Every structure is written in structure tokens, then in C-alpha cells.
């Protein structure tokens, strides 16, 4: 936050200072998060769930107060490390990528602001503070997407992103307010009376909010709606693909690692709230989530996964394919959370962050190499020109598809599939997820074949990106492979860490019959997808002019997929149309109704003025003037008496004397 503030003040030319400042501050925060992680580890080693909170009163009105605060617990620690580490790599990468851009400092200012806000979301203890950082994240995503504001498409995309996320945030805010009104506090954990602690949860559970949902469930769903907006789940995902307009590091940062993860993190954070509804309730318990809220989350997640995967298949823009794959992976995470609880979902989030970041940065270096060319049909044969990028990109692709054993993607996706399998209530999501995995494998191979295999279809020869860009790729590739180990069923370190249990190494869980079957099916699915993809695009590299191979075979399916299943159009038709119509209605009302009222009032006043004038003329003036005239005449009469003729006075005097005398005598007559 501080870094972004300072960079904002810097002028354009201080490029060096801006970048070093941003990277320095993020590096520093990475260091801090390591320390925190170590601290939590130590705590965890003693076998207790570490949760330290710091909270202070921010607003005091009346006797109720709004408190803000920070919390450090395993969930937060993991996210801290992941966000700052990935962020740091992306910062370094973007130094190279944005080298020739003139608003370099401004870019880094937004980046550091984004990172600061993201870290704020992760460690905040109060729902309100979380919401504030959430809003800043939304803002920075708008700024970064619309970074090249000259391009109208970028500006439109930024606006679109902002509005759709904002749409989700409305529900999020409603949830906050409702929670605040019920529990009286927004702090998650506050020595027992925090909103997520059993005491207030018990209160929430008892209230019924209709539709069979308990208050807790309802609030959970509202907050989940916020997450849907931010993470681009099914109804509100339209903004995410368009967000590719921004520079690649941005897309990487936003759509791979952090921002989208924020949604999932939020659901994870308020998981106890959502799970409160479930009859068999145990915190962080494995697949016992049968509360209504969680089922909803699961269904949304699964639907998004399949839906996005379908669209990804028919995309030609390299970044757009990755965007849709992110959406579907998020669907996976949501489903994981819904089914398997916090640990399963979070593990997939961590692994996905690394290899998706890798893929995006790889795409970035490809685009950089191909002189800003983004359409995969005009690339091909980059295996030769950009060998390092190709290798790292291939590793990332395999991790994403969930290539068995070696790649982290496999283990985290399996965890989700396992949870889906075991969930007692609903069977549907499992099959959807499996189908999704197939599709993922398919479109990733299609992309790799288009980009790296075959021959160069672009106008100018591509060249390898400089060291500063390829180094992060290599690091990320390493993690994409290594990270799987911490979450394997054999040694579920990550899950234990999150739940605060001791992680014991047990091979037998691996060879447990059910799990083996699951591993076999998923690997089968992956191989199926890869083969399918290779067969279509592998051998004969597609000609630029020819339509896509799949397109030839299944044109009726291809067209809608390419057009993103007309979701935008659908929205266009419904929501926008609705707004337009509503605008017209409002205008009509405004002009007719209010105008009418104003006219009426005007008419009344005119009438009143008229009345006043009449009143004034014949009453006030008339009356007043008449009396004045009478007075003056009377005055005139009197004045004539004072005529100055002395003898008049004498006469009056005499008459008066006579009159008095007469009266005197008359009255005193005996």
C-alpha cells in the first residue's frame, strides 16, 4: 500500500525507482509472510490451531462500534506466501514486458496497490475490512485492465469487469449488513463472540430466512454471490475473458493467481458460516457439507467448470483460452470447497495459482516474441524459436490437465474428484467434473499444437524473450511440479496443516481401493483428452486459412462455442435491454409524472399569484387607499379650520365659551 502511494507520486520518467520500489516492497512483504508462515508452522507443530487476532475500533456511533482487525491463521498464512511469491515473480516479469511502455511507473503503481489490497483481503479479520480491500482489488483490476485506455476495447472491458464484479458485490454487501445486524459484530474471530464463532453461529442457525435456508446459510449464499462476481463464476463470468485486453502480466496476476483466488478465499474464510446449516456439523470436517448453501456452491462450481471448458475449446485467442480455463478451474475450486471443505478447495487453488501463472507468463512471452500477435492461428512452430518458453509452457499445460503423479494439478484435482465421489447427497457434480477434466485436457493440447507445433504462420519471425522474463517461467515450472507432493493422500500435509492436525505419513491411504480406482479414472480421462487433441491438431498442423479441425467436423457446435454460447448476447438482450427499457420508463415517468406535478404546482402558484393580485387590488389597495382618502379629506377639513384667519379663532372661542356657559348653567339648574 505504501509503495503504491509513493509510486503514484513519482513522475513518468522515474522508471527505475518505481519498479525497484514496487519489487522491493513486495519482496519485503514476502519476507514478512515467510516469518508469519514459520510462526504458524511452529504453532502447528505444537498441535494447536494458531489464531492470533489484532482488532481496534474504527467507527464509534451510538453504543455500537465497527471494529477492524487482522488475523493470522493457517489459511491466511498459506495465502500470504502464495500471493506475495507469485506477485513478486509477476512484478519481475512485467519489468521486462512493460520495458518499452511509456506509462511504466503508473503500471507499477497500480500493481503495488493491487498487491497491497490483495494482502489486505487475505489477513483481514473483519468482514468490513475484507470488503474494503475487496473493493480496492476491484478498482485496481479495473485500472489494470483498462491500462491502455486509448484502446476502446480495453476501456469497455475494464468497465464491464468493474460493473459485473460490482453487481456481485451488492449481494456481498447485503450479506455483510445482515450479518452485522444479526451478530452485532463483523469480526470473524473475536475471543469467542466473533461472527464466525460457534456462539453467534448458533444464533444465526436458529433464525429461518425462508426457502428452507437458515439465516447463516442465507448470509453465506449472499457472500458467495460476491465471490461469484469476483471469481467469475457462471452467471457473472462474462467480464473475465474480456479482461484479457489488459497487459499479459495483469491478466496473469488477476486471472491466474490472486484476484480470482480472492473469491475462493472468501468462501473458504466464511466456510464455517456456510457449513453452519448442515445437520452434521464439524468445523473443517471432510465431506460432511450437506448444508443447502454448500450444495448450491457445489452446483454453481461444477456448472461453471463444464461451461467454461466447453467455450475454451472453440477460442482462437491464446489468452482467451487461458481465461476460460481459469474460469473452469475456479469452478473446480468452488465445487471442491462445496464438497470437500476448505482444505481440498484451497489446495487446488494454490497449485492452480502456480501453473496458471506459468501458462499466462508463457503466453505473454509468446505474444512478446510474436510482436504482439495473439491469434494462435497466425502462430505455430515456436518450439524451435522459443525452446525455453516451450518447455516451461508444456510443463504448465500438463500440470493444468492433471497429468498423473508428477504434476501438482493431478493431485489437487483428484482431491476434488474424491470429495465429489464421496459426497453422500449429490452425485451429479462428480460426473460433470470428470467431463470437465476431459475438456480441459483437450483444449490445452489444441492450444499447444497451434502455438508450438507445426510451422510458423506469422508474418515476422519470433524470437526468444529476454532472461528477466524466462527466469520466472522456470521457477514457476519447478513449483508446478513440486507442489503436488504436499497434498498427496499419502502424506496430506497441506490438509493437516490447515485443520491443525498432525500430518502422519501413511502409504496405505494411497493404495486404498477407492482412491486407486479414482486415480485410474482421472488419468484415463486425461490421456483420452490428450490423444483426442493430438489426433485433431497434432499430426498435420492446421493451415491458417482453413477452419479449425473441430469446426469442420462439428460446425453446429463450433459456432456457438466460438461465440461464447451467446451469454453476452443473452445479457445484452435481457439485462441491458431491461435497463434501456427501464431508462425509457424512468424518463417517461420523469417527464410525464414529475413534469406533470411540477406543471401542476406551477399552475397552482400562478393561480395563487393571480388570487393575490386580485385580493391585493380590490381589498388591500382599495381598502387602504379609501381609508387614506377619508383620512386626508378629514385632515383637509381640519386644516381648513387652521386657516390663519385670526377672527375665525376668535369666533370659535366665543362659541365654545357660550356653549360651556350654557351647559354649566343648564347642569347647575336647581
Amino acid at each position, binding site marked *: 500500500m505504501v509503495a503504491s502511494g509513493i509510486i503514484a507520486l513519482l513522475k513518468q520518467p522515474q522508471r527505475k525507482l518505481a519498479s525497484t520500489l514496487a519489487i522491493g516492497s513486495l519482496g519485503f512483504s514476502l519476507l514478512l509472510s515467510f516469518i508469519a508462515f514459520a510462526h504458524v508452522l511452529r504453532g502447528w507443530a505444537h498441535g494447536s490451531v494458531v489464531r492470533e487476532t489484532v482488532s481496534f475500533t474504527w467507527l464509534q456511533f451510538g453504543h455500537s462500534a465497527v471494529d477492524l482487525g487482522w488475523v493470522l491463521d493457517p489459511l491466511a498464512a498459506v495465502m500470504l506466501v502464495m500471493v506475495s511469491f507469485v506477485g513478486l515473480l509477476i512484478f519481475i516479469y512485467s519489468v521486462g514486458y512493460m520495458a518499452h511502455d511509456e506509462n511504466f511507473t503508473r503500471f507499477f503503481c497500480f500493481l503495488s496497490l493491487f498487491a497491497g489490497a490483495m494482502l489486505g483481503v487475505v489477513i483481514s479479520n473483519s468482514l468490513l475490512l475484507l470488503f474494503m480491500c475487496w473493493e480496492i482489488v476491484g478498482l485496481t483490476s479495473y485500472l489494470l485492465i483498462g491500462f491502455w485506455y486509448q484502446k476502446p476495447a480495453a476501456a469497455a472491458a475494464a468497465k464491464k469487469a468493474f460493473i459485473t464484479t460490482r453487481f456481485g458485490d451488492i449481494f456481498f454487501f447485503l450479506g455483510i449488513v445482515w450479518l452485522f445486524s444479526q451478530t452485532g459484530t463483523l469480526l470473524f474471530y473475536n475471543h469467542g463472540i466473533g461472527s464466525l464463532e460457534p456462539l453467534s453461529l448458533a444464533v444465526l442457525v436458529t433464525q429461518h430466512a425462508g426457502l428452507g435456508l437458515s439465516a447463516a446459510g442465507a448470509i453465506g449464499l449472499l457472500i458467495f454471490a460476491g465471490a461469484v462476481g469476483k471469481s467469475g463464476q457462471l452467471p457473472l463470468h462474462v467480464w473475465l475473458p474480456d479482461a484479457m485486453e489488459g497487459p499479459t502480466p495483469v491478466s496473469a496476476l488477476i486471472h491466474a493467481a490472486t484476484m480470482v483466488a480472492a473469491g475462493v478465499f472468501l468462501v473458504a474464510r466464511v466456510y464455517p458460516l456456510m457449513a453452519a446449516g448442515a445437520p452434521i456439523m464439524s468445523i473443517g470436517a471432510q465431506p460432511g457439507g450437506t448444508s443447502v448453501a454448500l450444495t448450491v456452491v457445489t452446483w454453481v462450481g461444477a456448472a461453471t467448470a463444464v461451461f467454461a471448458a466447453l467455450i475454451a475449446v472453440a477460442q482462437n485467442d491464446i489468452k482467451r483460452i487461458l481465461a476460460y480455463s481459469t474460469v473452469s478451474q475456479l469452478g473446480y475450486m468452488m465445487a471442491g470447497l462445496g464438497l470437500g471443505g476448505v482444505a481440498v478447495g484451497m489446495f487446488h487453488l494454490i497449485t492452480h495459482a502456480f501453473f496458471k501463472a506459468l501458462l499466462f507468463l508463457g503466453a505473454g512471452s509468446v505474444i512478446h516474441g510474436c510482436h504482439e500477435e495473439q491469434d494462435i492461428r497466425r502462430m505455430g512452430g515456436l518450439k524451435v524459436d522459443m525452446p525455453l518458453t516451450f518447455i516451461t509452457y508444456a510443463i504448465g499445460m500438463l500440470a493444468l490437465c492433471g497429468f498423473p503423479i508428477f504434476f501438482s494439478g493431478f493431485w489437487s484435482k483428484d482431491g476434488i474428484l474424491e470429495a465429489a465421489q464421496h459426497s453422500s447427497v449429490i452425485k451429479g457434480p462428480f460426473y460433470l467434473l470428470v467431463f470437465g477434466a476431459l475438456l480441459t485436457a483437450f483444449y490445452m493440447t489444441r492450444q499447444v499444437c497451434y502455438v508450438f507445433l507445426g510451422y510458423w504462420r506469422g508474418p515476422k519471425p519470433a524470437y526468444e524473450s529476454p532472461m528477466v522474463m524466462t527466469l520466472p517461467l522456470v521457477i514457476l515450472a519447478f513449483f508446478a511440479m513440486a507442489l503436488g507432493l504436499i497434498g498427496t493422500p499419502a502424506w496430506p500435509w497441506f490438509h493437516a496443516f490447515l485443520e491443525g492436525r498432525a500430518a502422519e505419513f501413511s502409504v496405505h491411504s494411497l493404495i486404498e481401493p477407492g482412491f486407486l480406482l479414482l486415480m485410474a479414472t482421472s488419468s484415463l480421462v486425461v490421456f483420452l483428452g490428450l490423444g483426442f487433441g493430438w489426433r485433431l491438431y497434432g499430426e498435420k498442423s492446421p493451415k491458417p486459412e482453413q477452419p479449425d479441425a473441430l469446426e469442420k467436423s462439428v460446425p453446429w457446435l463450433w459456432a456457438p462455442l466460438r461465440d461464447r454460447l451467446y451469454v453476452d448476447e443473452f445479457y445484452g438482450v435481457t439485462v441491458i435491454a431491461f435497463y434501456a427499457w427501464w431508462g425509457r420508463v424512468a424518463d417517461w415517468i420523469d417527464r410525464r409524472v414529475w413534469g406533470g406535478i411540477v406543471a401542476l404546482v406551477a399552475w397552482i402558484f400562478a393561480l395563487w399569484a393571480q388570487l393575490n393580485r386580485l385580493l391585493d387590488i380590490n381589498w388591500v389597495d382599495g381598502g387602504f387607499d379609501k381609508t387614506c382618502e377619508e383620512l386626508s379629506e378629514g385632515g383637509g377639513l381640519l386644516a381648513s379650520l387652521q386657516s390663519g384667519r385670526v*377672527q375665525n379663532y376668535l*369666533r370659535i372661542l*366665543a*362659541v365654545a*365659551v*357660550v356653549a360651556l*356657559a*350654557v351647559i354649566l*348653567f343648564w347642569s347647575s339648574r336647581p
Partner: protein
Amino acid sequence: MNAVFYILAALTLAGGLATVLLKQLVHCALAVTVAFAGLALLFLQLDAQFAGFAQILVYIGAVAILIVFAILLTRGSELPKDGVFSKTWFLGLVIAAAVFAVLGWAVLASVSAVPQQNAVPSVTVRDIGIALVGRYVLPLEIVALLLTAATIGAVIVAMHEKERPR
């Protein structure tokens, strides 16, 4: 005594009437002198010697002359062009008559109540002198002051202002 009284009364009243009715202003002035003389004699008739002589000295000697002078100075002696009496003379007459009626009635009504005393009071100038400086010393001083003031005032009022520069 009544005879003399009647004569004198007639004389005075004739003088008064003449003053009011005569056209020539100077004639009126003279008529008024006659009236004053008549009154002075009435005073003598009432054995108020000093008052009578004072009346003669003051009124006939000074006031009459003053009136005559005033008439001359204001060119009253020529015949006034548009009539002697003011336009509403009749009203004046009526009022005068009314006043006389009231006074007369008052006199007749009350005269019986006043105790009559016919003894001739012997008044010498010495008594008057003593009274003047004894009981009436204050009025005397005040009248003295008044007369001085009046003289000065009259002079100033009637003084011919120096020609104001045109």
C-alpha cells in the same frame, strides 16, 4: 344717581357701537376714546378715583394715541376698498349676541345672590399706595417687568429693519 349712570352708560355704549360700526378707521379710534372716557367717568361714578384717572391717563393718553398712530402708519385712514365688514359679519354678530345673552342671563340669575353693600368706600391715594407696596408688591414688580419687556418688545417688533441687501 341712576340718571347720571344711565347717561354715562349710554355714552360708553354709544362710543362702543360707534367704534364697531363707523366706516372711517380714525372715526372709530375717536369713538373708542369716547368710550374710554365714558368708562373712566363710570369708574369715578363708582368712587374709584384713582382707577378712573389711571384709565384716562393710560387709555386716552396713551392707547388711543397709539391706535391712531397705528392707523396712520398702516394707511388705514384711506377708505378701504372692499367693504368694512368681513365677509362673515353676520356670524360674528350672532355670536356676540349669544355671548351677551349668556352673560346677561348669568348676571340676572346671580345678582340676587351677591350681598349688596351701598356704603361709599373712602379710598385715598395713600391707601392705594400702601396696598400697592404692601399686599400687592409682587404683582407690582411683575407688572413693572412686564411693561419694560412690552416696551422693548414693541419697539423691536415695529423697528424698521435695515434695508436687507437686495
